[in-house]
């Protein structure tokens, strides 16, 4: 199938869905409106809301806040995950001692931590960052741990036979291997950074996309909720696209960037 046909079909799906939505929300079928506007709104109103946000410029502030929180959560969570992952992988004893606790914390649904973080860190951005960090940290941690553990035996022996010291092995063998695992989970961890930020905002904040959605919901403004959702997914797709570009640059040496591990 050519690219143009594929694109046309993809657009067609969106158009059909939107037309059906608009139709059932405004035209009575057998004397009944199947998608009552109070519960389902309609595409025209949602679109109008989005336009209003962007034309008045309100949305930028909220997008900016959510983006800041996501980036901070990603950076802090990744840094922690890399450090601890490395440390655990190189010190089996430490890993063995902490193993049950790591599993316990990871098993905990992170949403329940949001009230605690709100209490500790207030309603500003840091409580959201903290929530995102708890999500990102474990993904990066497990991947880096695995990456260091599963360095090919032969490659490691080769490094040793070439005369590498422990430090040089770190730099030329363990580190690149761990990074490649971390990058292969980049999409997931970036996605979770955004989830942490938005959920945190939703549960208590004064700004951000999650706040917008929560506010709209509070006054039964379904168009606002849908508009928030659309802006959010467009935002995530854009970030994901950025991640793909970064990944393509950094993992040129991998056979195919798409054969995802982890």
């Amino acid at each position: 199938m050519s690219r143009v046909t594929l694109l046309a079909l993809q657009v067609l799906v969106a158009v059909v869905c939107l037309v059906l939505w608009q139709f059932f929300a405004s035209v009575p079928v057998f004397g009944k409106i199947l998608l009552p506007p109070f519960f389902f709104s309609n595409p025209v109103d949602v679109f109008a809301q989005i336009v209003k946000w962007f034309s008045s410029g309100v949305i930028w502030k909220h997008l900016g806040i959510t983006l800041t929180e996501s980036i901070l959560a990603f950076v802090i969570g990744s840094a922690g995950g890399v450090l601890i992952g490395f440390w655990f992988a190189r010190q089996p004893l430490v890993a063995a001692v902490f193993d049950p606790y790591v599993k316990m914390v990871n098993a905990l649904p992170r949403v329940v931590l949001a009230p605690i973080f709100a209490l500790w860190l207030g309603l500003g951005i840091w409580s959201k960052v903290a929530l995102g960090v708890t999500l990102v940290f474990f993904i990066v941690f497990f991947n880096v741990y695995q990456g260091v553990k599963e360095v090919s035996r032969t490659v490691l022996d080769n490094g040793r036979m070439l005369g590498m010291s422990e430090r040089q092995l770190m730099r030329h063998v363990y580190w690149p291997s761990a990074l490649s695992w971390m990058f292969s989970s980049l999409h997931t961890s970036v996605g979770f950074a955004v989830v942490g930020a938005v959920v945190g905002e939703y549960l208590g904040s004064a700004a951000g996309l999650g706040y917008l959605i929560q506010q709209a919901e509070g006054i039964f403004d379904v168009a606002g909720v849908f508009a928030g959702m659309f802006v959010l997914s467009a935002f995530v797709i854009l970030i994901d696209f950025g991640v793909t570009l970064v990944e393509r640059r950094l993992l040129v040496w991998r056979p195919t960037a798409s054969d995802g591990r982890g």
Partner: protein
Amino acid sequence: MTTPTAVALEDAKVAFRLGDDRVYTAVEKAHLSVAQGEFVAIVGPTGCGKSTLLNVAAGLLKPAAGSVKIFDQPLAGLNPDAGYLFQADALFPWKTALDNVAIGLEIKGTPRAEALPRAQKWLTSVGLGAFAGRYPHMLSGGQRKRVALAQVLIRDPKILLMDEPFGPLDAQTRQVMGNLLLDLWNADRKAVLFVTHDLEEAIALADRVVIMSAGPSSRIIGDWRVTLPRPRDIFEVRLDKEFHALHREIWSVLKDEVMKGYAQSTQAAEAV
């Protein structure tokens, strides 16, 4: 003899502890010496511990008994004089061919600006001058072996240990690689310990062919000197009369071991 001994294994025994307190003896009472500038090939049936012996010479494995001497010095830890060519892919997949070769120098503290042109020269001498920017996965199996060879040789090791290095390659590529190896070796005649399961390859390349018995507890059971003139061409040397006579003689010993090794491996499979 006045030439110094590069590698000397004396009464070396290698044993592995299996999970349930049983001990598996891979190699026993191995006596082997490689003189400086000598090319020695070790041949034996699968699972006879040829690679184990090589790992002992490299210092990757410690013998349970006996001694390993490198240039008359007892070996402690890794063998710093040895370059090791692995059977499996051992290149760093995240480095380009050029960086993979240069790393051998960079480790020793050679500045990158100096290491890169020398690495390029080595890539050219293994016939891969135009592939410097490729990552290992973009190269064929034979090309990866060439890069690995350059990676090892750029450090100018005094001893070259090779563990079935051309095993994974197809027959033609193996012969080409064999000739390349001989050409490079001829330039400065390092001591070589070359493990293979291919008797023809062993005779064509080596000065001495050492035969090991089937494992477990395998021993060295034969040692033949190959007097074919050098420089040799692997394609031609196989047509030589002396080559055939030697091949027949060694094979008569090796054949029994191969059958024994085969029988043992099938019995072991049935016992499980």
